[in-house]
């Protein structure tokens, strides 16, 4: 899997690169539109992470060029301008997703994986980890073909973890992903803990060989046994 990050903020670029490298992606970077244009002309990428505010122009420009040339790379816009207008413009121009800065790495990871999945497993949209399988079309998770009967939130939690398996998932990243911004002011740890306790119980009774482990003070990690 090949990913291109177009971002002019050095530290931001390095963070994304480090994180995605750990996921065993091939990561290339560009710091300007011109540089990105050259790379896109030569290679094909599975996913492009595109910043909007770049030194030599707007990321929307590049997006338009891609669509005009019928280049089918997946594009996720990554922008500090979290306005509805930008989001709509980006999606209208054919971006696959829009991620507002600041974001958690786990969230970026989940979005990238979702884009990759949509592009690659046309028709057969399933995730398998150990004896867990998730049918993305049916929104159903099962262990050894026995349905887990998860509610909507539990399903989303599990899906988020599977995108970030063996990675440390920050509890607020999880909260924002599953419950949106609403949860941010609540004493989130206790709340999320009780939500995850139910999911763990269901996984355990069903005999799953994956486990959601708590990492004190920070969050959780999905590990395969």
């Amino acid at each position, binding site marked *: 899997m090949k990913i291109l990050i177009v971002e002019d903020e050095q530290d931001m670029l390095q963070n994304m690169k480090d994180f995605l490298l750990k996921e065993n992606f091939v990561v290339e970077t560009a710091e300007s539109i011109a540089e990105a244009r050259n790379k896109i002309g030569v290679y094909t990428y599975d996913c492009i992470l595109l910043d909007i505010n770049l030194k030599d122009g707007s990321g929307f420009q590049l997006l338009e060029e891609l669509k005009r040339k019928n280049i089918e790379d997946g594009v996720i816009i990554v922008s500090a301008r979290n306005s509805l207008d930008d989001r709509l413009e980006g999606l209208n121009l054919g971006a696959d997703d829009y991620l507002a*800065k600041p974001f*958690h790495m786990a969230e970026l990871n989940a979005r990238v994986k979702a884009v990759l999945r949509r592009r690659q497993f046309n028709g057969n949209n399933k995730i398998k980890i150990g004896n867990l399988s998730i049918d993305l079309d049916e929104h159903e998770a099962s262990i050894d073909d026995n349905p887990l009967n998860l509610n909507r939130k539990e399903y989303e939690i599990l899906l988020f973890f599977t995108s970030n398996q063996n990675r440390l998932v920050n509890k607020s990243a999880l909260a924002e992903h599953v419950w949106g911004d609403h949860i941010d002011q609540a004493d989130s740890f206790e709340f999320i803990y009780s939500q995850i306790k139910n999911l763990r119980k269901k996984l355990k009774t069903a005999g799953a060989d994956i486990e959601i482990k708590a990492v004190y003070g920070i969050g959780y990690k999905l590990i395969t046994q």
Partner: protein
Amino acid sequence: MKLLNYTTSYFSAILLVLLGIWAVIFYLEMLDEIYDSLDDGLDNQKMLVIKRAKQDAELLQRSQFKDGNYTIRPIDKNSAISFKDFYRDTLMYMQNEDEYEPVRLLETVFKKDDEFYKLKIITSMVEEDDLIEDLLFSLILLYVGLILSIVLLNNLILKKIWNPFYTLLQQLKDFRLGKDQKIETVPSNIDEFNLLNTRVEQMLGKSISSYNSQKQFIENAAHELQTPLAISINKLELLVEKEELNEEQIELIASVLNNLEGLTRMNKSLLLLSKIENQQFPEEEIVDFNAVITDLKSDFEDLAGHKEMKINLKSTTSLKYKMNKGLARILLSNLLKNAIIHGQRNSEIEIEISAKNFIIRNTANNGALDPEKVFSRFQKDSSSKTSTGIGLAIAQTIAKKYEFQLTYYYEQKHTFQLRFPR
């Protein structure tokens, strides 16, 4: 009281006093002049009567006024010598009026052929009560006339003169900082008004520009903070995944992460607040509050369930208002979130929707809050560490933007009421 009426009322009071004094002086002067001329007439008549009496002895027999206006009676020499002319007022029966009327009387003595005679001459006089009555009536007429003229002058001339002042005043009355409107003054020939106009323009200009730069500053600062905050959080997330860290080190990083996330939340809220104040949500549509709150209720169900709270929604009617949909969601979700976070465990949150009101209540263990402070920024309940204290300030800012009234009161429960303008 309005300025014009105020001057008019002052004028009427002063004129009343002035006209009163003037009337008394006028009356006395006039009376004095009347007496003077009556007495002169009597004196003249005296001389004529004495002259005629000296020629015609028959006249000396007139002891009654009858149809004439004088009497003559003989008196002894002694009293005649010491007698001096004198004028006095007296009453006399008048046939035409059928009553006693005041008359002016002159008494004098004269000598004819070594005999002394006393002569009394009368002349009819002004009736003082009639005079006073006439004078008072004229004065009232004059007074009313003057007041009417003043009111007329005030309304025609003063209103025209004060026009720049009233125009300025009207605009200042409707002026609200942050609504980006300009004051337009009327040029005038009057120095004072021109000074007032230029000063007001200058002061408002300064206020508007410092208000704008402050708003802009908050927005820029919040915006510029986002990237470094994101980078720091992301770097810590990468660091904490390193295998060689021990539990103690992870806890330290967790604490830093928590604080940075708190900072990010606060920054997001401030950014939102200044975006609302900077009018960056121009899109409006008809928002159905019943639909929004039902949607939010299901979003918050997990969180409420976690605190074993029940959200009880009572809606009697549909409540729709034209506004930005995102802001409507933020407004209601902040109120609901506030009720869940600060409400007691195992209690009920009541939401009531009626034609013009949205009311949300939660139980409390701490009694009434200060309704003045509850909506100010960074006002927070010390028991909640993670709350930023901006949620209600944001709700209030949104309410003000659309001219809703968001108020807090305490009636066994904390109550937040959102009142719609129509």
